[in-house]
């Protein structure tokens, strides 16, 4: 951290030379510095003037502020969580003290960009019950705030698992309940108290964080619970005998801060992925070992986290070997006799486990093996102690007598345990450091805390073209020199054997100056600057007591200046995409191995995802940069020069694409740019696609109000205008944002409009958009509200009540409802084949894991008087977000073809054939075993005839089964079928869900709790109707601007005019309510039936209808075919041949029954580069949880039995339905098709269920109908087989044998 002394020094450096700089650093501190008053205080916030403020500030009146002369942090009150977590009491704002700076009228003047931080005891967090100002700091000492409570679930699915690990509650009765297919109890007495102290010393730039777990039960608690763990060990076949329970912190440094870890720099995703690729044996866990977790941002605020390494009465090594998770595990040997973490763990190593959406998890410590009860502490005798706790005024009521008895009965054993040396609590300590923007400021403070010997390094960044000092904000990356080479000229080089170890980062200040502290040693630096080629490594040495100055040079950037006009010659917002061609280079990491360096902070250059051909540069294209042009139609930006590459055989150039969404043609201009050169590009865009009466709308957009976005509202709106989007609905997570002031301020009103909305984001019970919604300027989150433990129907009703129009004039949209833990349908167990809603533990085939691992609590079910449970799932939403971003994998239920299913079904039929003979695998094993043993010695022994008979039967059955499997696979043909697992669709998709809901009445209309919450009889009557017409939507769910393709997909909503800024909220609501929506990531598709448009209803008695299909698309987009879907099945399909951006055809379709029709349109060609491929694999919460679950035998996946997650983006559009009433009763009756289910066999020859809309045949093969689904006979997410033996690793011989052959 830079002291005020250093800051003053930096401010004056611009006028003096290097010699003076060095001399000045030796000068004594000024009198002002010495006399500066230090203080620390803690207080409850009573006015907005005490708030911190800033882009991510969430503090509110009633929260707790701790501040000193350098830093300020806010701990939120006990009420509901305003960040991303579940509970109050977490640390949510953090900033430096910024005296004399202007602030926000509604909050403070700070630059808080902090997310949230709270301790994790394994995966259990604090459900706070009390927050206390332990010391307010008036005594001149540290200010202290303590948050105390019981164990709380971050993810309710882990409730029982946490109870076993942390003893938060007694797991034993919940195991019993699980055996009865009941979820864990929610009303148990806690066994431990969890607490955290935030301690701020005067003059410190860090908060000391002391987390505590204390046994408050009457018995000794083991961590983990040994008796249950032994059961688990047996059940899972894994050794948990030496498992110790880790603890640490959930760290949300905020999306505006770039996380940095020594060793992997800014490349957390692949740095962690590389770690996960190497399995590690329990009791160690996978993760990146790091001495600090840090971040950087150019906004003058950064955060860091490190473990305390002080020791009292022992060496730190002794303490770390007992308490620090990584160091302790590294003292133990794995099965191969090697230390778990390689033997070089340091006492300050932490284990960084995951990073997603601005949040990371780090394990720092491990709990002791046991904690004694704490009630008997002190010198008092049993009677006095127990009565003080459980008698008289301290405790009243019947249960007190029981506790008093327990206290007295347990007292002696409690004392015995304590005097025997078993502690009653465990405290682990770490530091939250607040820096001034760069990583080095974090290191500086940590060095200061630990008393590390360092030397100040001064530097000045110079411009490589002019040699003049560069400005502020240039990045200098600091590396530790390679230790595996000794030659000085190799220590700062990269080769296959090694590379320098990234250690820190510093930003230049005014006039290019910077300063940082480093321990003596040999280092390397290099520079990174936007639009410049990454600098070369330069070696330097830091010697104790010797001042040092370095002068890094920034490579000069190239520049592109762009002017965009419309057909009338007026400026036009647009997107500029700079596309380069990279040299052919083989790298196991793909383009990230040579095209960009994520570790240094360079951004990903997305490629065309075409397999690279050394002879064809057109296969090696990538996106160098994306920039949006605002209403002025012009911009200038820096880009890496490509002129230098003329030295290689292939000529390098950039193709600069100017685009403006799917309604406009694209202009391309080829340029070459030398370092320091500015190239001018101009283009006139032509709007070629007619969308008259429809406006394009993205109903799901994030910006600054979202804790995982933080995107500036201006950039949000300019990026959307550049994509040609006309209606932007603001839907920040649990924060109401209003985009309109930014539409106006950026002069975008000729092109677009906005609507106020909200994404009500629960942690594991679904995400729901609501619009329009009231904007409450006096609320910290501008009008969001508590969702924790609320049933969805109550959330929907609360959202509707907040509509500025009326509760009836509001849209509730279920967002990405199949997105694993974030999906409403997934978490509420909506059947993906027949729309049933059954609580997993009440399903017919429910097993132990359904009760143990189901999401639980009042958000999911109500316990009825008869002891059964009723799902709280509510059907009273209006729209389903069918198409989310580029996530094609969530569009359809995952289907597999025969080549994927071959090995699965071979095994399946083997089992079946044995069954037919009344045999199973065990019988065969037993028979053959007998033949090999007893009968081998004595062929006439008793039972040998039977064994021989059984063995022969087994051989025949196995042979037949194998041949049958082949035969059946031939019968399957080329069709793909839905893959099921455990009776459910393994990977459900939204489009199939929506079709099912259009096909069927709902299983119920309104739950009783909803009936009580909705007072309006008219609305209730509407909700009670069992057939509901849900509107399908498609939205980008964009959190960023560049490289995020906001506005894809989008909705064309019918409003009856073409002037965005004239559109009212009511028009948008009506368009969505009336299903007048076309969903697309490119093509514009229209459907009319007997002249009735999308969303309408047609009555006919003719038995057939005239269907008109129309497709429009710009010339750069490939649209190949259409499918007309009737009641969920394809009833007509054909080629689309665009002529002058339009294609139209009318066909006749039979309608023997009431039928709804949807038009699907798609193309085969990638939309690169206008729409970037989905090349970066996701790092989602499942991955994070999987990193922990892996060693426990969960996670992984069967090869080929899960959807691809990376792919080029191709055109796809679909309309909302037109309903045709054909039976003359004037009312549409859904087909209520026979309920599809997951079947266990490949062959399904039937005719009776075939729809009249589908040409019936004598028999059909499985796969020819949309909902044909096949149950795979083993878990699609079973543990990944061990593919090969790696050095130093030991695996059970059974596992090795099972894996043998798979790897080949």
């Amino acid at each position: 951290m830079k002291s005020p002394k250093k800051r003053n020094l930096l401010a004056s450096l611009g006028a003096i030379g290097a010699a003076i700089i060095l001399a000045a650093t030796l000068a004594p501190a000024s009198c002002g510095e010495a006399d500066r008053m230090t203080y620390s205080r803690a207080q409850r916030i009573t006015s907005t003037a005490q708030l911190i403020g800033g882009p991510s500030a969430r503090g509110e009146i009633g929260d707790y502020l701790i501040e000193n002369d350098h830093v300020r942090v806010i701990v939120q009150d006990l009420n509901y969580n305003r960040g991303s977590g579940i509970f109050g009491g977490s640390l949510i704002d953090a900033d430096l003290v910024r005296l004399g700076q202007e602030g926000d009228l509604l909050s403070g003047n700070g630059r808080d960009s902090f997310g949230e931080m709270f301790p994790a005891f394994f995966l259990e967090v604090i459900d706070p019950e009390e927050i206390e100002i332990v010391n307010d700091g008036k005594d001149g000492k540290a200010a202290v705030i303590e948050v105390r409570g019981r164990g709380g679930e971050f993810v309710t699915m882990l409730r029982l698992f946490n109870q076993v690990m942390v003893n938060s509650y007694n797991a034993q009765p919940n195991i019993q309940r699980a055996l009865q297919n009941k979820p864990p109890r929610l009303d148990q007495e806690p066994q431990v108290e969890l607490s955290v102290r935030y301690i701020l010393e005067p003059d410190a730039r860090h908060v000391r964080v002391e987390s505590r777990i204390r046994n408050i039960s009457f018995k000794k608690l083991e961590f983990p619970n040994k008796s249950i763990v032994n059961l688990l060990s047996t059940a899972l076949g894994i050794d948990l005998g030496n498992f110790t329970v880790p603890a640490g912190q959930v760290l949300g440094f905020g999306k505006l801060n770039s996380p940095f870890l020594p060793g992997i720099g800014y490349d957390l995703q692949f740095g962690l992925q590389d770690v996960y690729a190497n399995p590690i044996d329990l009791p160690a866990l996978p993760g990146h070992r790091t001495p600090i977790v840090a971040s950087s941002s150019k906004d003058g605020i950064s955060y860091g986290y490190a473990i305390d390494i002080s020791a009292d009465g022992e060496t730190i090594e002794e303490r770390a070997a007992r308490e620090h998770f990584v160091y302790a595990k590294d003292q133990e040997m794995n099965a191969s006799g090697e230390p778990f973490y390689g033997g070089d763990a340091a006492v300050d190593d932490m284990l960084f486990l995951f990073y997603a959406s601005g949040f990371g998890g780090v394990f720092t410590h491990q709990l002791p093996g046991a904690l004694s009860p704490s009630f008997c502490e002190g010198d008092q005798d049993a009677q006095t102690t127990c009565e003080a706790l459980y008698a008289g005024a301290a405790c009243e009521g019947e249960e007190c007598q029981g506790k008093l008895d327990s206290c007295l009965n347990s007292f002696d054993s409690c004392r015995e345990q304590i005097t025997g040396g078993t502690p009653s609590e465990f405290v682990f300590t770490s530091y939250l450091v607040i820096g001034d923007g760069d990583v080095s400021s974090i290191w500086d403070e940590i060095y200061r805390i630990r008393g590390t010997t360092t030397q100040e390094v001064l530097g000045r960044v110079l411009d490589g073209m002019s040699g003049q000092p560069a400005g502020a904000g240039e990045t200098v990356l600091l590396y530790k020199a390679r230790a595996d080479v000794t030659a000085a000229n190799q220590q700062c080089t990269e080769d296959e054997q090694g590379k320098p170890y990234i250690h820190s980062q510093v930003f230049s200040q005014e006039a290019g100056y910077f300063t940082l502290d480093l321990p003596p040693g040999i280092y390397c630096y290099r520079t990174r600057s936007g639009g410049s080629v990454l600098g070369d490594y330069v070696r330097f040495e830091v010697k104790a007591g010797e001042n040092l100055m370095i002068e890094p040079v920034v490579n000069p950037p190239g520049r592109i200046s762009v002017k965009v006009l419309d057909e009338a010659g007026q400026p036009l917002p647009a997107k500029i995409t700079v596309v380069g061609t990279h040299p052919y280079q083989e790298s196991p990491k793909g383009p990230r191995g040579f095209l960009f360096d994520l570790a240094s902070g360079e951004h990903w250059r997305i490629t065309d995802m075409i397999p690279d051909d050394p002879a064809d540069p057109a296969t090696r294209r990538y996106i160098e940069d994306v920039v949006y042009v605002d209403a002025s139609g012009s911009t200038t930006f820096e880009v890496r020069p490509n002129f230098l590459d003329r030295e290689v055989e292939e000529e390098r150039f950039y193709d600069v694409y100017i685009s403006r969404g799917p309604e406009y043609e694209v202009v391309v201009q080829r340029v070459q740019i030398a370092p320091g050169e500015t190239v001018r590009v101009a283009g006139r865009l032509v709007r070629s696609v007619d969308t008259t009466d429809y406006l394009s709308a993205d109903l799901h957009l994030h910006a600054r109000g979202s804790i995982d976005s933080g995107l500036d509202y201006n950039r949000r709106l300019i990026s959307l205008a550049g994509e040609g989007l006309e209606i932007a609905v603001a839907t920040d997570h649990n924060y109401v944002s209003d985009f309109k002031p930014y539409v106006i301020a950026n002069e975008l009103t000729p092109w677009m409009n906005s609507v106020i909305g909200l994404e009500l984001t629960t942690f594991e019970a679904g995400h729901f958009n609501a619009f329009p919604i009231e904007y409450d300027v006096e609320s910290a989150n501008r009008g969001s509200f508590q969702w924790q433990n609320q049933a969805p129907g109550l959330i929907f009703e609360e959202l509707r009540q907040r509509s500025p129009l009326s509760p009836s004039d509001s849209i509730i949209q279920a967002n990405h409802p199949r997105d694993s833990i974030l999906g409403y349908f997934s978490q509420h167990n909506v059947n993906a084949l027949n729309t049933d809603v059954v609580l997993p533990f009440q399903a017919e085939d429910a097993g132990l894991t359904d009760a143990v691992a189901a999401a639980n609590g009042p958000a999911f079910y109500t316990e009825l008087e008869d002891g059964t449970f009723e799902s709280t799932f509510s059907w009273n939403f209006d729209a389903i977000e069918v198409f989310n971003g580029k996530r094609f994998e969530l569009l359809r239920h995952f289907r597999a073809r025969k080549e994927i299913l071959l090995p699965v079904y071979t095994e399946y039929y083997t089992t079946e054939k044995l069954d037919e003979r009344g045999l199973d695998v065990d019988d065969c094993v037993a028979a053959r075993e007998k033949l090999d043993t007893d009968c081998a010695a004595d062929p006439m022994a008793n039972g040998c005839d039977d064994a021989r008979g059984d063995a022969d039967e087994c051989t025949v059955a196995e042979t037949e089964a194998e041949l049958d499997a082949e035969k059946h696979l031939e019968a399957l043909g080329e069709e793909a079928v839905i893959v099921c697992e455990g009776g459910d669709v393994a990977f459900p998709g939204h489009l199939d869900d929506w079709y099912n809901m259009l096909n069927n009445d709902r299983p119920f209309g309104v739950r009783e709790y909803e009936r009580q919450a909705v007072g309006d009889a008219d609305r209730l009557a509407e909700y009670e109707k069992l057939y509901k017409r849900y509107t399908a939507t498609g939205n980008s769910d964009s959190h960023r601007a560049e490289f995020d393709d906001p506005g894809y997909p989008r909705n064309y909503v019918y409003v009856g005019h073409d002037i965005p800024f004239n559109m009212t909220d009511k028009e948008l609501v009506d368009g969505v309510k009336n299903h007048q929506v076309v969903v697309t990531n490119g093509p514009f598709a229209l459907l009319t039936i007997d002249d009735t448009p999308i969303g309408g209803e047609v009555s006919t008695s003719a038995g057939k209808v005239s269907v008109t299909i129309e497709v429009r698309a710009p010339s750069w987009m490939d649209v190949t075919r259409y499918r007309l879907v009737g009641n969920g099945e394809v009833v007509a399909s054909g080629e689309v041949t665009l002529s002058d951006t339009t294609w139209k055809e009318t066909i006749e379709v039979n309608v023997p029954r009431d039928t709804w029709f949807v038009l699907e349109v798609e193309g085969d060609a990638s939309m690169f580069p206008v729409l970037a491929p989905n090349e970066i694999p996701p790092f989602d919460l499942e991955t994070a949880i999987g990193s922990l679950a892996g060693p426990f035998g969960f996670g992984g996946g069967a090869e080929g039995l899960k959807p691809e997650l990376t792919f080029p983006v191709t055109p796809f559009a679909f309309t909302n339905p037109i309903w045709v009433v054909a039976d003359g009763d004037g009312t549409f009756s859904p087909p209520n098709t026979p309920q599809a289910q997951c079947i266990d066999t490949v062959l399904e020859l039937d005719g009776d269920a075939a729809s009249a809309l589908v040409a019936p045949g004598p028999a059909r093969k499985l796969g020819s109908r949309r909902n044909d689904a096949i149950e795979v006979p083993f878990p699609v997410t079973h543990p990944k087989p061990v593919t090969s033996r790696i050095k130093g690793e030991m695996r059970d011989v059974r596992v090795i044998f099972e894996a043998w052959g798979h790897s080949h």
Partner: protein
Amino acid sequence: MQSKETRRVIASICALAVMALQGAPSQAHDKAQERGILAQVAPDRIEIMLTYYRPAGDHVDLLKARYDLNKNGKIDRNEANLAGQVWLKPALSGLQFEVVGESPRARAPEIKFRDEDDGGLSMAALVRYDLSKLPTDKKRTFRVRLEPDAAATSVHLQSVEGLKLVQVGKRALEKPREHSGPYTLESTSPLTATFGYIGETEKNLD
């Protein structure tokens, strides 16, 4: 559980190899063959995974012609059990396994085949032998011998469930381990490995 007295009996040496049990003669040394053994010792059993490779040629072609019943070019599943009866003989040729003091009971081997990139064919066989549960204060010695002129063989040793490898040959290990190898087996000297409980108590094993 057996009594400690019973478990203390220093028992006879028992030949475990299937080949030895079947009494088949050893085959001549064939340099083209490769085989390896992974022996895993647990308190109540020993599991041996034997891998055996033959290069492309008549042997491989003949085996496939006879046992690739579904003509998919591979020997898999129940075909492997049949073909395995043919290949187990040469695969085990010249090998003898012993556990000091035990009369192990062999279970039926599990067998797999896989095609190698060079056209050769490999077989893996997993055999489990049940043993009396080892008392916590005792050690278990496993020995593998190679007859003269038998095919070269590499041996990996490992232990599970609280057992650790404490001695290989005449040399006590510096630190008890759960894995060791590979060792090249020579006909002149058998490979002897001793396993024991290190740092475990009867209580927490139970």
